[in-house]
């Protein structure tokens, strides 16, 4: 039995704003195995983005235990986190290759190697030939691919994605879902994927952690036993429907 890469136990976080306490997460308890892609799904205000920030080391948590890394998979909080947000957040004064290199520059990695890696990643995400373009020359979906390459350039063990495809149109989104599965498989990263989309969460995840708002709490942790590699026609399988129905029910939408 391998040790979990991420171990969360009873994690809570309260924000204090102007005297009022706002409970952002309560009692988040789940494990993530190395190389898993875990979806975090729930409505706005359920604390899923806050949880990512706690994992990225951007916010301290108030209570509970957060452990990342294991004996076999050591974790360096500075080097081993890659982040992708809903907006691509590319620096518009930098060419795509230079954008992808940003984390390597900040970490002071050897630039020769980083550049070779950045080029390889750009071809992995399907942006070969766009290295010298500026972000405005790319479509939203292509910019988000560049943002994924940027999150991988320093070879982090953990990639945190906060609704990365939320701003894309439905067709591009489906395409990016397939792309993400391919990138995940080829890179072998552990990925935490935050989304509003229930079917997206089930389609992508090896597991889906369901969170509810008001009060913010963790409602369920579902192992998704769909065959891999996932294909779009699985969305019509009975199993797929059962999973999504179960999540809809948990979120009080049925």
């Amino acid at each position, binding site marked *: 039995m391998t040790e979990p890469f991420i171990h969360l136990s009873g994690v809570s976080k309260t924000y204090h704003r102007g005297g009022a306490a706002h409970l952002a997460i309560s009692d988040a308890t789940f494990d993530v195995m190395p190389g898993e892609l875990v979806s975090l799904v729930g409505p706005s205000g359920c604390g899923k983005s806050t949880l990512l920030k706690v994992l990225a080391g951007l916010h301290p948590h108030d209570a509970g235990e957060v452990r990342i890394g294991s004996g076999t998979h050591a974790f360096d909080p500075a080097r081993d986190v890659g982040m992708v947000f809903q907006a691509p957040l590319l620096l518009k*004064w930098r060419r795509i290759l230079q954008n992808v290199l940003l984390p390597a520059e900040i970490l002071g990695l050897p630039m020769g190697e980083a550049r070779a890696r950045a080029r390889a990643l750009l071809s992995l995400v399907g942006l070969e030939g766009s290295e010298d373009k*500026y972000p405005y020359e790319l479509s939203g979906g292509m910019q988000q691919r560049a943002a994924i390459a940027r999150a991988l350039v320093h070879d982090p063990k953990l990639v945190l994605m906060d609704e990365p495809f939320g701003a894309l149109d439905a067709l591009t989104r489906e395409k990016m879902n397939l792309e993400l599965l391919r990138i995940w498989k080829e890179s072998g990263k552990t990925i935490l994927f935050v989304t509003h989309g229930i079917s997206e969460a089930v389609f992508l995840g090896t597991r889906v952690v369901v969170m509810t708002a008001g009060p913010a709490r963790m409602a369920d942790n579902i192992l998704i036993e769909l065959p891999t590699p996932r294909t779009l026609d699985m969305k019509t399988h009975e199993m797929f429907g059962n999973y999504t129905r179960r999540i809809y029910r948990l979120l009080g939408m049925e």
Partner: protein
Amino acid sequence: MRALPQGERMEATSNTFSRTLLAVLAHLGLLAAWYAFVALGDVPKYVMPSPLATAKALFDANYNWWLNSGVTALEIFVGYFLALAVGVTLALLFTWSKALEAFFMPLLVSLNMIPKVALGPLIIVWFKYGIFPNSLMAFSIAVFPILLTTARGLRETEPELLDLVRALRGSRWQLFTKIQLPGALPYIFSGMKVGAILAVAGAIVGEFLSSDKGLGYLMLQVQVTLDTPAMFMAVILITLIGVALYGSVLLLERLLVSKDARIT
């Protein structure tokens, strides 16, 4: 430079060319109108000299054009660069410390309401007259737009980009040089352009109030003898100094800020 398709590029080039041509024509037209007005209207020379008479004033050695222009230019440049250094530094300190910003920003907004020209007599009391107090006038009037636009530009950075750098345990300096400063550059340049025009006005007002050198000083001297051509020439030279400053800022902006990010 961006790579545009061939046809689009040619169109853009010919468009730029015709625009430049029109701009040159407009300026020549003004010169011609000025000449025609003086020649046909029988206007006395002390009211409005012809372009030729104005040009001739340049050869009057008594006016020390080189020295006076040099002094005015120096005042403007010293005041302007001081304003740039202080404005950007303060804006940077404000992004680093929310408390500092909350305390000083309202104060600076109020201070900005002071008509800086009204400070002239005080500056003379404090610093006597000469190049430095006039630079100070230029500084006091140019620093606010630079400070306020830079502070705004630095604030515009997306919070998630800050998260990205912080998650990598990047330093404040890396955050500033790699994200905030280049992101704020279009705003800084927009403040610098406004500041360049104001710095020229500040220095001239300083010279009007009290000085013994400079083009503003010279204008007051020749006003007494009603040498209007020399006054015209002084105005033209002041304008040219302003154009040189503004032009350098514009050139620098072209080099440093990509076209789609410029604020016009």
